């Protein structure tokens, strides 16, 4: 016992080393969203194109929705845009845009020249809805289910790989729930 206790510091240091070493490979930018499982926040915002009528949560279609946070100032949004165009052809869900901290002219120009994957895009100049959603950067994509509950937040550009791994299983699950009538 007396001899063994001498190794205690070594054991502790090794254990600490293992914990810290693991910490090295974690990505501190990957934050879990605090909004998962909560209802999509209420909003009342103008659209990127339509600056006259306020849109609210009542304007969102029923069924599964993707809400994509974007801005013309965000290079990764440009990267994922082509993939969003592809996704917009699907009828499994509706894609809505949330244009964050942007200028209306630039945003309109972006959608006109690159194509518009969104049912409509909300113009969140002051970040009101974005703050309520806990958005901290663009692009971010939220999955909202048929009950208007936020099921997922993905930070970073979408691509086929990410879609296959992170979104497909969840969509399938929500579709199951929808069928079961929950």
């Amino acid at each position, binding site marked *: 016992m007396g001899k063994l206790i001498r190794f205690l510091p070594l054991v502790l240091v090794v254990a600490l080393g293992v914990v810290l070493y693991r910490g090295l490979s974690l990505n501190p*930018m990957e*934050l879990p969203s*605090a909004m998962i499982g909560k209802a999509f926040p209420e909003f009342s915002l103008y659209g990127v194109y339509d600056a006259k009528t306020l849109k609210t949560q009542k304007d969102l279609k029923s069924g599964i929705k993707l809400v994509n946070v974007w801005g013309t100032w965000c290079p990764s949004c440009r990267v994922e845009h082509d993939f969003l165009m592809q996704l917009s052809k699907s009828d499994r869900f509706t894609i809505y845009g949330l244009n964050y901290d942007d200028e209306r002219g630039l945003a309109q120009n972006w959608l006109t020249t690159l194509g518009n994957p969104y049912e409509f895009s909300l113009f969140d100049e002051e*970040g009101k809805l*974005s*703050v309520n*959603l*806990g958005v*901290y950067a663009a692009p971010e994509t939220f999955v909202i289910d048929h009950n208007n509950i936020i099921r997922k937040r993905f930070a970073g550009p979408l691509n086929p790989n990410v879609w296959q791994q992170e979104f497909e299983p969840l969509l399938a699950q929500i579709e199951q729930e929808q069928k079961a009538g929950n």
Partner: protein
Amino acid sequence: MLLRLLSVFIISLVCVFSLPVDANAIDTYEFKDEVTKTRFNALTKELRCPKCQNQNLADSNSPIAADLRREVYDLLKQGKADIEIVDFMVARYGEFVLYRPRVSSLTYILWFGPAFLLLGGVVVVVYVLRKKPKEKTTDILTDEQKSQLDNILKDK
């Protein structure tokens, strides 16, 4: 003379430019009283910017930090208490936005770990000190060792 004047000028110029700079992001918020202003400053120092993780809301220039500062300002204006504002942020951005994490089962080790370790250290020290010293074995050198020692000392 001219050279001296020039050097004085340069030195004073350097002095002016090295005055401490207030590095906080500049917003033009007006507060109804000093207390609200102090509360605003305290809150934006306590809350962490989700985008630039090693800065607080007060220091960061990122758009999200500006939006969150405005949010804090609006909430203060609505007469919300500090705790409500902090809850508002935590509900949206998670515990992450707090520079001083709350005491919860997840953060026990963070809050009580150091005290626990200190206590452990005290226990070890007391244990070691109170251990009965071993019987002192008097080390006596043999004659041979003595002469060896003498030789070594002589050499010096």
